[in-house]
């Protein structure tokens, strides 16, 4: 146990040294480290609870996805039946299905065949699962029911999350934040972490908007007040203005041009009224559609609709052929800025709901760091003094081993670019306790072996070999607890699991190698006649 070949000793020292070296960038000023190669720049990332910032968990509204998908199917059914010149009645969305009744006298089989074409295999034509997006069934009375399948919704939610991540990323980046983290979580969630953000109100506003922009015609044939009381024409929506007081408008469902055709949007000021406005530019196809629509409707009002609210409803004075325009609608500078940002980033495929928010101000973070430091130092000093008092010279060896152990924890954390949280600091302090325990186990065993009448070198040797088995057993149990914590935990708790788990690994490493090596060198050097513990 006390014999090390030269290459083995070198390998042990080298490993510990290199791992410790990785901790170095954490303690140097940033401007020094920046000139280093990328792999050497790795460092510990402070968690949001230490550096301050916002953690926001968003969920794609799967009900909205379902609703949209059903409405789209209903529109498809209408289009298909119209194209095939099939008479129908009672086209409605009911529950999870779209129902339609084919009129007597129409060719029912032909209509059914056309409707069956709407049912597509999921995952494209190469899919092998055999799952389809719609189940088409018939009932007596010429009723056709198209039911949305669960895999279709799951697939659509998955796509929505993927598209949303891109858009969220663009929106957050436009805010000028530093190193935001945006990642998918689970099936229908997106995690947004923005370090250093003090007040997430604006971020939340920007993430909470779908930003679906449409240019649609105002239906002036029926006054909106009348529609409020009576029936709303089936081709229209009753929408309200975004500004106070809420004015009702009757807006055609047909979309002239949508926000997807925008290439740019910028905030600006109106030259005459100097009110904040948003200027925009269409792409080629958008410009063509807009030009055509404005040519046909000179003198009539059209509406700019954002998330089902009318921003403004100006009258078309002349055809707009240049493919660019402006939106004015009682904006503040801030809201014009935000709208331009949202339009540039694009619309979300489905609304996002904030289901969890955790924000830590920078003051609290700094307090936590300071407290973490003080408690670590105090804890370390108390443990060091206690070990010296209990084991003397061997206590010193233990303290050296524990110090290297802590340095190695920082090295591994840096190597993994891991996040250090306040519970993570607690984890390191606890690791000090565990690391000391491994030394205590060894030394107590040596004491026993000495009492059992062995010679000093024999006792040390036996002490190590017997204690190490115990150390392994006891650390594996703690490691299992840390692994489970890592698996189930999020944020700060996961940070605790990471430092605890890494700490256990470095503890076992130092106990098996470094502590033994130090004692072995000491034995070879002093040839002790009695063990000083």
């Amino acid at each position, binding site marked *: 146990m006390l014999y090390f070949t030269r290459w083995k000793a070198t390998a042990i020292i080298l490993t510990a040294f290199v791992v410790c070296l990785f901790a170095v960038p954490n303690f140097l000023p940033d401007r020094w480290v920046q000139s280093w190669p990328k792999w050497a720049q790795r460092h510990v990332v402070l968690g949001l609870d230490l550096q301050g910032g916002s953690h926001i968990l968003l*969920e794609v509204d799967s009900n909205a996805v379902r609703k949209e998908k059903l409405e789209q199917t209903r529109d498809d059914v209408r289009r298909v039946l119209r194209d095939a010149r099939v008479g129908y009645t009672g086209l409605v969305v009911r529950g999870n299905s779209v129902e339609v009744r084919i009129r007597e006298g129409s060719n029912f089989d032909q209509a059914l065949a056309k409707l069956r074409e709407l049912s597509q295999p999921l995952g494209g034509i190469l899919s092998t699962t055999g799952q389809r997006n719609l189940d088409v069934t018939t009932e007596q009375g010429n009723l056709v029911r198209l039911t949305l399948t669960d895999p279709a919704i799951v697939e659509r939610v998955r796509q929505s999350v993927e598209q949303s991540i891109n858009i969220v990323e663009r929106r957050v980046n436009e805010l000028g934040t530093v190193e935001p983290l945006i990642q998918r979580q689970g099936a229908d969630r997106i995690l947004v972490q923005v370090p250093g953000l003090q*007040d997430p*109100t604006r971020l*939340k506003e920007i993430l909470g908007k779908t930003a679906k922009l449409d240019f649609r015609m105002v239906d002036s044939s029926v006054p909106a007040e009348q529609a409020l009381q009576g029936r709303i024409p089936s081709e229209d929506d009753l929408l309200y203005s975004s500004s106070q007081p809420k004015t009702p408008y009757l807006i055609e469902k047909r979309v002239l041009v949508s926000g997807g055709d925008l290439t740019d949007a910028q905030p600006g000021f109106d030259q005459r009224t100097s009110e904040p406005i948003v200027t925009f530019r269409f792409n080629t196809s958008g410009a063509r559609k807009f030009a055509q629509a404005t040519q046909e409707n000179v003198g009539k009002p059209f509406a700019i609709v954002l998330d089902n609210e009318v921003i403004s409803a100006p009258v078309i004075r002349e055809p707009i052929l240049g493919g660019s325009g402006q939106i004015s609608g009682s904006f503040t500078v801030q809201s014009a800025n935000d709208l331009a940002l949202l339009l540039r980033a694009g619309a979300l495929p489905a609304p996002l*709901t*904030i*289901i*969890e*928010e*955790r924000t*830590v*101000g920078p*003051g*609290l973070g700094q307090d*936590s760091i300071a*407290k*973490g430091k*003080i*408690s*670590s130092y105090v*804890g370390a000093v*108390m*443990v060091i003094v*206690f*070990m010296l*008092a*209990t084991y003397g010279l061997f206590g010193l060896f233990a303290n050296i081993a524990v110090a290297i152990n802590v340095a190695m924890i920082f090295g591994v954390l840096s190597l993994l670019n891991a996040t250090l949280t*306040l*519970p993570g600091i*607690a984890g390191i*302090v*606890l690791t*000090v*306790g565990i690391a*000391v*325990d491994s030394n*205590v*186990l060894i030394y*107590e065993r040596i*004491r026993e072996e000495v009492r059992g009448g062995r010679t000093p070198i024999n006792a040390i040797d036996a002490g190590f070999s*017997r204690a190490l088995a*115990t150390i392994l*057993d*006891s650390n*594996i*149990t*703690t490691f*299992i*607890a*840390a*692994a*489970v*914590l890592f*698996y*189930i*935990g999020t944020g*700060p*708790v996961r940070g605790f*699991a990471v430092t605890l788990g890494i700490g256990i690994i470095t503890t076992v490493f130092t106990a098996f190698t470094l502590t033994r090596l130090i004692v072995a060198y000491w034995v070879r050097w002093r040839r002790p006649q009695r063990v000083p*513990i």
Partner: protein
Amino acid sequence: MRLLRIVPDDTKFDFMRFRRISFPVSALMSILAISLYFFHGLNFGIDFKGGTLIEVQSQAPTADLAKMRAALNGLGLGEIQLQQFGAPNDVLIRIAEQPGGEAAQQQAVAKVRGALGNEVNYRRVEVVGPRVSGELLSYGVVGLGLAIICILIYLWFRFEWQFALGAMIANVHDIVLTIGFMSITQIDFDLTSIAALLTILGYSLNDTVVIYDRIREMLRRYKKMATPDLLNASVNQTLSRSVITHVTVSLALLALLLFGGQAIHSFTATMMFGVVLVGTYTSVFIASPILIYLGVGRGGDALTRTSEKS
């Protein structure tokens, strides 16, 4: 230099005889803890209950709680708890989960920000919606169960089933008592509490495994020794290590408790109770003596199989 010896070298305390006291006491304490859980309950934090937690620091050196309470109670957000937290100008505001789904929680925060205005700094805002809170709780419970099962399987492989069962009884005992402690003190029970419970589990097992390791070794060496004597000898031999280790862990925890600040206070307090008080007691007075009843070493399969292996 004379070195510190907390436990004299030749301690021969009869731990096994003490089981006639420790078992009934533990059983009683466990029943007490379970009834506390059911009748007094845990103080679930927002992680598991949903709702909003806001930590603010007033500009004035001392926060005017009455004024803040008056301002917030007018908002119609149901029950709002205000509590001084650490420094005299630090206030913790807890708002129960609002009816009306995820968006309602966000509106509540906006209202509070509006009511308190710029008189305070917002040091921390945490909002957990109904969906997340439900999931976090089930994750926590599943995690705790999963950890116990994984550890048991490991112990079963490394030792004999009697040891695994003994460790499990000791484990559950630890967790039950700690939950009782959390119920009495009404410490916030949140995700960090689950972390604390799992760490207590790990530590307590660590301790138990060290003693079990020694018992196994003794079983191999002294095949004729009576079980209670053998267990007593094992516990006594490892006693010095147990005490020294617990002193160092307590020192580290004490530093966290005194200087770690409010944010991890409940975490360290729970750990202090679980690791230092309960964990040590359990491994010495419960986990070891229980092996007598589980039939270790009485010529049973545990002994024969271990000796076959060696």
